[in-house]
Structures are given as C-alpha cells and as structure tokens.
C-alpha cells in the first residue's frame, strides 16, 4: 500500500474530524477536542510526508547546469516513473458511460510539496491553538472549523478537476467568514467577516466565469490536460488570455492583491491562530497556487505581465503602509499582502519555480511570525507594539523564534526568505528591470518595518502608544461603526506582567522555526535548488536565468541590511519621534483612503440600480409570483371536488379513462 493510494485520506480525515467535533465536540473533557484535532492533523502530516517521499522517488531528475542554461530539452537525466504524475480517479455524476465530473486526485510534485506544507503548518497551528484558545467558550467549535478548513485546503490542493477545486475554494471562503467572525460578539468582527466575504465572493465570480467558459471551450475541467497543446489550440490566444485573467481576478481576491486587498487587514479580527493559518500560511496561498495551475493559459495568452505588474505594485504598496501601524497583527497582515505580491511577481516574470519556493517558505515563516505574535499578545495582553514591555527579557523563547521568522521575512542570509525572495528578484531583473527595482524597494521597506516591530516590541520598555488617541485611527469609517462601537483595542490592565507562553505553544513555535530554516536550505543553491528542480515541469520556459546569480544575492542582502539598519538606528534611539509628516502618517494609517472610497463610491453606485431592481422585484415580479400562486391554489381547490370519496365516481373515472385510451387506441 503506497502513500499515493492512501492519499484520499488526507482531505478525508480532517473532514471526518470536523463531523465528529461538530456533532460531539462538547463531550470531550477539557482540552480534549483540541488534542483530538491535533492528533488527526498529525496523522495527515505523516500521510503527506509519505506522499512527498513517494513523489520525490518517482519524479523526473534534471541536470542542474543544463536547466540553468535554459536548455531543458537536454536537461532530463532521469525520466519520471511511468505513472507519474499520480492520478486516482472515481466516476461521479455519470450515467450511461458519459464522463460526468470524475473525482480526480492529481499528485504532481507541486501538489505533494504544497500538501506537505499545508499539513505541517496546520498541524503546528492546531498544536498552538490548544493553549491559545484555552478558556474560549466555543473551544470545540473552533477546532471543528479548523479541521474543515484544513480538509478544504488539502482537497483544493489535491483536486485534479477544477470543478472540485472550485467547491473546495468556496468551502475555504465560508470557513474564512466563520473564523474571522469567531468572536462574533464584537461588532468589528461581524463587519470584518462580511467585508472579507463580499470582497472575495465578488472576485470568485471571476473563477466561475473563467471555469465555465473554459468548459464551453474544451468540454472538461481536467487540471492535468489544461496545458496540452491540443487544448491550447482549441482555446485560442484571446480566450486563453480572458479565461486566465478571470481566474486571476479570483486569485487576487483570495490572495488579497491590490486593489482587492482591503479585506485582509480587517480579517485580523479573527483569533490569532486563524490569522496564522488562513490569512497567512494557507488559504491566501491558494490564490497563488491557482494562478500557478492556470500558468499555461496565462503564458499562452501572453498576459503574464499583468500578473507581474499587480504583484510588484502590491508588494511595494503593502510594504510602504506597514511601518505606519502599531498593531502587531496588522503589520504582519500588510507583510503577508506584500509577500504574496512577490509570489505573483515571480510567476509573472517566468520564475514559476522560484515563486512556488517562496510560497512554501513564506507559509512556514509567516505562520511562525503570526503564532509568535499570538504568543506576544497572550503574554503582554495587548496587540500594540508600543505597549509591549521588553518582551525579550520576559519571553525568550518567543523572542528567538520570532527573530528567526523576522530574519527570514527580511531576507537575511541564511534564512528562508533570503533564498526564495532573491530568486524571484533575480528572475525579475532578467525579464523586467523596472519591476525588479520596485521589488528591491519593497525589500527595503520589508526589512525596515520588520526591524521596527522587533525593536519596539521586544527591546523597548512599554510606552504610551502614540496614535491611540489620534482622531483618524479611531474606529474604522469604512466599517460603518457607530462612535460607541469604535473603541480602540484595550490596553493591558495595570499591573499586568508579561509572561512566557505554555509548552504546546512553544513547541509549535520551535518546530515552525526549524521547518522554515530547513525549507530555505532545501531550495538554496547549496542543495542544488532541490525544491525548485522537484516542482519544475518540462513545459515551463526556464527554471532560473543563469547569469549574475551571485550579484543578485549580494544586492538583495545589502538592501535588506540597509532597511534594517535605518530602522534600528531610528527606533532604538527614540521610538516615539515623529519622522514622517503627520498628514502622510494619517493617510497611510487610513490605508490611503481606498477602503473609504470603496465604501462610499462603490457602495452608492451599487445601491442606485438596486433601488430600481427592488421596485421591479417588489411590485412586478412578486405580483406575478403571487398571481401564479393564487391561481394554482384556486385550481387546486376546484380540482378537490373531483375527489368526492364515492367509489362509484372513482370507478366512473376509470371507465372514462379506459374509454379515452380505447378510442385513442382504436384510432
């Protein structure tokens, strides 16, 4: 029994776990439901690692030197095993030998790598939540949601049929909605969950339109066949571009790319493990994964530059906004938006494998950072970095693991982000120098805001948060909250002393720190770009441009050091000194007014036609519906008289019927 044959258990187990927790979660004593869910994820993690092992054995081998030169025709040194990529298939919704929509599990290298990534990240986030969510009223429900979310994400990654990808994608959207609003008594959480749902749902329309258009063109939803020459020929350049872009819109929504990034900041209303899992490590990565799967269409349609442009702009935009925030989760949320931008940039400049490397590396170090922030919040009882009191002294484990994540994010060698981000920048330098400069600038800001966060939260004593009283940060005008509901987040109660978190939480942090270092090395040139060559597919134009690799690494490091140095220099001297003009800070903190613009202008635009439609619906359509219903009831009450209860009448009907048939028959 190979792990490939067992692979359907990978999404199935957490789905069953969800059913069990949803029905009987309350019967577990104490933290039992949390430990149960974590045990399920541990089994899933073992299965996915086994699957990854099988895939590594079966995958084709490449000659690195030839690949780097771009000659992938000669680069193949070991053909993959004949049944690779693995495919498990069951018929579904078929009648009389028609194809229906087969249930397919499709396992190529990318699917196996991302499955392992999701399973491991999810496992440690489950483990962390056991302690973090302790004392929560709906403790079992939380784990039930996490389980179903993991099931949906794993199903999405393994699905070999875009129809089922869509189903899993929508379940993830629903779970995101439910988990953002998990603390549903908070008005802000309610508003945030609606905002996230509406934004992503609008984007999802693109997925559906693209998918159904695709179906009209080629008549199936098969993922593996999408890039085949015959299919591309049937689709044509124009349609390929249109379908690719429609799907990319959905990916932009899910992965919070400008201008659909607005929901991710508010999504931080969910509990921190949720932010780590859904809004950093896995679900937001689904957009990148989907784009990677539609890569052949985007390439064939010649619209990769759109992906690259959106990615680069988002990377810079989010990195510039991040330094203006004081809430540790919001800083990390901007950082997520920015890093996802890098991945799209990588996809857009032919750095397909590099982008996938960054996807995996980012998942681990961002989960680590978010869980670290959860530990900080847990210990310091505030989300405001200014109010955190020398956490390095009080929470050494959290500090050192957080530092590993932060260095990875900044791109300091030899941590994960250094290996992955610099490869993306390197590909950009080769194919789109302007976007490369944008990316470098974003890297500078990344190092800057990360260092600022660390210096203020971990090294400095607690101080009055500078913007807490500022008029423009109070509440959120775009969330339509009344003044009494828009209180700023609470400060820690007087006399609170920061303390280190419990053993499960520390274990999760250490494990993720180790994983994020390891995965960085796996994709580094030291190990022959192992991860990149594994996911590389022959039909991609290139693995990496060969030239000037060393220069790229040096430039990236220098830029990151410069950003980190500036932040260190400024904030260790005087964290509270106002260095940017006040109007600029205000504009940045109000997210450049984009959310307000959407709320006011798009809201009004959407409402005008709605009024008209509402009128038509209420008076015209409802009237017709009522009329139809009324007529039916009248007919029904008339027909009732036929059913007299007298059997002579009934026999008469039968004879009448016989006569009618007989006359008809003798005709």
């Amino acid at each position, binding site marked *: 029994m190979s792990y490939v044959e067992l692979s359907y258990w990978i999404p199935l187990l957490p789905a069953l776990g969800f059913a069990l927790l949803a029905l009987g979660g309350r019967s577990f004593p104490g933290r039992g439901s949390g430990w149960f869910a974590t045990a399920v994820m541990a089994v899933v993690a073992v299965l996915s690692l086994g699957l990854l092992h099988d895939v590594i054995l079966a995958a084709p081998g490449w000659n690195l030197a030839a690949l780097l030169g771009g000659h992938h025709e000669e680069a193949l040194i070991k053909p993959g095993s004949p049944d690779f990529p693995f495919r498990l298939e069951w018929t579904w919704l078929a*009648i009389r030998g028609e194809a229906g929509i087969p249930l397919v599990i499709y396992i190529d290298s990318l699917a196996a790598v991302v499955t392992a990534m999701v399973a491991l990240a999810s496992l440690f986030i489950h483990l962390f939540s056991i302690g973090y969510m302790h004392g929560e009223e709906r403790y079992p429900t939380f784990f039930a949601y996490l389980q179903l979310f993991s099931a949906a994400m794993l199903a999405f990654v393994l699905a070999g049929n875009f129809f089922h990808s869509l189903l899993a994608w929508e379940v993830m959207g629903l779970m995101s909605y439910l988990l953002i609003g998990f603390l549903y008594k908070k008005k802000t959480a309610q508003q945030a969950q609606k905002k996230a749902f509406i934004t992503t749902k609008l984007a999802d329309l693109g997925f559906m339109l693209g998918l159904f258009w695709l179906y009209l063109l080629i008549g199936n939803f098969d993922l593996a066949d999408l890039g085949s020459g015959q299919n591309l020929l049937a689709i044509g350049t124009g349609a390929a571009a249109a379908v690719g872009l429609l799907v990319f819109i959905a990916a932009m929504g899910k992965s919070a790319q400008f201008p659909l990034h607005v929901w991710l900041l508010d999504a931080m209303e969910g509990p921190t493990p949720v932010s780590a899992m859904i809004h950093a490590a896995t679900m937001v990565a689904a957009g990148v994964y989907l784009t990677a799967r539609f890569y052949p269409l985007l390439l064939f349609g010649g619209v990769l530059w759109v992906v690259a442009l959106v990615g680069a702009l988002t990377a810079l935009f989010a990195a510039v906004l991040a330094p203006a925030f004081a809430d540790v989760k919001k800083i990390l949320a901007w950082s997520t938006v920015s890093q996802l931008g890098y991945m799209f940039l990588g996809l857009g400049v032919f750095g397909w494998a590099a982008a996938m490397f960054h996807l995996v590396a980012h998942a681990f170090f961002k989960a680590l950072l978010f869980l670290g922030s959860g530990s900080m919040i847990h210990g310091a009882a505030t989300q405001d970095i200014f109010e955190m009191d020398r956490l390095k002294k009080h929470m050494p484990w959290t500090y050192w693991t957080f530092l590993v994540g932060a260095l990875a994010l900044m791109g300091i060698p030899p941590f994960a982000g250094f290996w992955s981000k610099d490869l993306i920048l390197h590909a950009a330098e080769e194919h789109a120098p302007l976007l490369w400069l944008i990316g470098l600038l974003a890297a500078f800001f990344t190092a800057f805001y990360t260092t600022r966060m660390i210096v203020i939260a971990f090294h400095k004593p607690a101080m009055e948060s500078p913007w807490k009283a500022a008029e423009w940060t109070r509440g959120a005008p775009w969330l339509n909250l009344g003044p009494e509901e828009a209180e700023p987040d609470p400060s820690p109660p007087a006399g609170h002393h920061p303390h280190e978190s419990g053993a499960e939480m520390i274990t999760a942090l250490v494990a993720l720190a180790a994983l994020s270092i390891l995965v960085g090395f796996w994709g580094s040139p030291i190990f022959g770009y192992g991860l990149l060559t594994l996911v590389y597919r022959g039909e991609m134009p290139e693995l990496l441009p060969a030239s000037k690799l060393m220069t790229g690494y040096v430039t990236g490091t220098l830029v990151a050091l410069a950003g980190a140095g500036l932040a260190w220099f400024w904030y260790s001297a005087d964290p509270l000194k106002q260095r940017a003009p006040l109007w600029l800070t205000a504009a940045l903190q109000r997210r450049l007014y984009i959310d307000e613009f959407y709320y006011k202008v798009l809201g009004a635009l959407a409402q005008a036609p709605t009024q008209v439609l509402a009128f038509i619906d209420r008076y015209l359509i409802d009237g017709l519906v009522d009329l139809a219903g009324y007529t*039916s*009831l009248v*007919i029904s009450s008339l027909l009732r008289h036929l059913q007299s209860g007298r059997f002579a009448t009934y026999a008469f009907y039968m004879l009448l*019927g016989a006569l009618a048939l007989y006359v008809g028959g003798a005709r």
Partner: protein
Amino acid sequence: MTLAVIVLLAFGGMVLALIAPSFDERPAVLGAISGTVFGASLLMGLLAAHESGVIYGAVVMGPLTSAAIVLLSLVGLLVAAGAAIRKGGFALGSGEVHALVMWGVLGGILLVASAHLLMFYLALELSAYSTYVLVGYDRDRRFGTEAAAKYMILGAVGSALLLFGMALVYTETGNLGYTGIAIELGGNPSALARGGMALMLVGLGFKLAWVPFHAWAPDAYQGAFPLMAGFLSVAPKTALALGIVVLLSRAFGGSESVMAQWIGGLALLSVVLGSFWALLQNDLKRLLAYSTIVHMGFLGLALSTASLTGYTAVAYYLAAYIVTSLGFFFALEALEAEGLPSTLESWKGLGRRNPLLGVLLAVFVLSLAGVPLLAGFLAKLYVFAALAAAQAWAPLVVAVVMVVFGYYFYFRILAAVFLEAPAEDSPELAFSPTAFSLLVLLALAVVALGVWPQPLLRWLQAAVTAVM
C-alpha cells in the same frame, strides 16, 4: 436461486401465518423470523444475478429478476424492522401482517420475473390481495375498513379491465407468452390489439396510481397504518414499474409503441394534476398519497422514453424512492404510535420539540422534493436526462415546472415543523430508539445515494441492459 427465493417466501409466509396465534404476546419473534427470511432472500437475490433461463416458460431468471428480488426483499426487511416501532404489535396480531407482506413481496418478484401474461396476472393479484388486507387491517380505525372496501372494489374493476385487455390481445395474437406477442404484433398492432393494450394499461395504471386511475390512493393511505401505507407506496410500485419495463421491452415493442406514448400521457397528467391536488392537503398521509402520484408520474415519464437511459432512471428512481418514502412513513408510524396524528396541525413545532427528529424529517422531505445532494434530486435529474435524450421537450418543461409546485407542498411540511411554534401544552416528545436507528439508517442511505450513486447505478444499469 430464483426458484429457491420463490419457495422460501411462499413457505415463509405460510409458516408465519400458521404460528402467528401463538406469538400474539411476543410480536418481536415474528418480526425477527420475517426479517431473517427477507435477509436470506436478499442475499440469494444477489447470488441470482448470474443465472439465466426460463422456468416453465413463465418465470425468467436473470439480472433484472435478481435486482427485483434485492429491492423488494429490502422493502420487506425494512418493513419487518419497522413493525417493531409499534410496541405490542398490531391490533389483530402481527403474524398475519408479516405473512401478507411476504406474499405481497413474492407477488411483486413474480410480476417482474414473468414472461407470460397469465403469470403476470396471477402475480399481480397475489400482490394486490395482500395489500387489500393490509389497508383494512386495523378494524378500529375510522377510515380503515371503508378505505379497504373502496380499494378492493376499484381494484376488482381494474383487474377485470386488465383481464379483458389481455383477452383482446390474445384474440389478436393467439399468444400469451411475451415473445409470441411481440412476434405477432410486429411493428404495427391492429385496432383490436391496441384496444386490448389500452384496457391493460388501465389495470396497470391503477396499481401505479396514475391519473385518472389514482382515486383510491388518498383514501387507502389515510385509512392504513402508516407503516402499511409506506409498504403500499413502494412495494407494488417497484414491482409494477419494473414489470412494465419488461412488458414494454419484451412484448409491446420499444419506444415507437403506442403503449409507451400512452404511458407518457398518463404520467404527465399525474404529475400535473397530482401536484395541484397536493397543494391544499392538510392530512400528511393524503399529502403523501398525492406525492406518490406525482412521483409515479415522473417515473412514468422515464418509462415512456423506453430507452436504456430511461429504464436506468426508473430503476434508480425506485431505489431512491424506497429509502426516502419508507423513511418518511416510518417517522409517521413512530409519531402515530406516540399518539401524534398525521396532520400538519399536530406537527407544528416538531423540530423544536425534538431537533434531531426535525433534521431527519427534513432529509426525507427534501429528498422527496428533489433537493441536491439527496437521492430524490438525482432521481429526478436522471428522469430529465432521459427525457432530454429522447428529445421530449414539452414533457420535460412541464415536469420541471411541476417540481416547483412540489417545493410548495413539501416545504409546507418543513414550515410547520420548523417555523411554527409548538402548542403551549405539548409534552416532551418521546421517541423509540428502534425508530430512531431506522430513521438514521435510512437518512444516511438517502444522503449516500445522493452523493455517491455510482455503484448502485452501475448495478441497476447492468440489470436493465439485460432485458433490452
């Protein structure tokens, strides 16, 4: 194996009837015996799939017979289990109930297996007589005896017309065997033969409750124990529908035949009028009777295409209808046993008094209405697919519109169960564990068939292909 099943069921029924008086105090024993016999016949039915050949020129062995044995034995098994819901058994003793159910099932199996009109008629009567008695079994029930009398007299009229029709067909063809009839009729039956077929259709339509031969159904359902109404709604229907599949494909020739066209007409009439009648019903068993009429209409539409797709749709529809309808009638039986009459009025707020029961009822009602992910949805979908494949656009459009009517009268049940508040003084609703486990089992089956129909569909299609 087929022969063994026939013998087993015939003698099983006799033994049950003979020992019944000694077990009046312990009805569970009889239920267990009956269940064991049906379980055995179900297994033997599965084994019979590979048989072939004809016994005495009248009983065909083969995959379709095997499928009929399995489906009808399943019904028998479920009804035997469902009899345990009512503690203390039935008013006049339970042994006879089990015996009659067993003979009813036997008649149904023979009906499908038959290759000869005489056999067909005998099987039909065997199954019909058991149901006449079962409907009127509870003498103390207000409508029981009246309903049984009406049902039997009308049934006699139907049988007479059926027999007359057979006689006319015999006059014209000189044959009672299906193969002989098919050869003699050829492509273009004479006027006399057509008349005979028309009269036969009245008898068949009566059992399937197609409009205008349906009028007995609401009274019979209302008068019977809900369990027996449930049996009535699935067992004779399953037998008749599969029997008509055999008749159409072996004797009365294919999709071009007038018989298939008449069936289409009757079916459409049933779907439309049945839906209208159902709109204003307040008695749940009457409502379910009209619902059966509508469902048999959908089934008839698939039959009228006389294609492999259509017949597969018929078979799947029957399987889906067995689990859904029996589930709903079991719930009725359990609630009546707790003293809750089967009216919309008394079901108000049921979902609040017992949420788990509410969810189970919702599964069955939604499946009857045809909501996706449940068996009833796929059943209708396959019927529509068959109609589309036969390019019968007009019936397809009408049928789809009538599904909306279905939503109205089914959702009235759900609205009463979930949206209305229970009466002030309603006591805690007790519910027997037997009933609960049966309902959960059937609800799981409804969901399983709706989500993963493939294995069943493949099996049914193989069975149906054998008669084409």
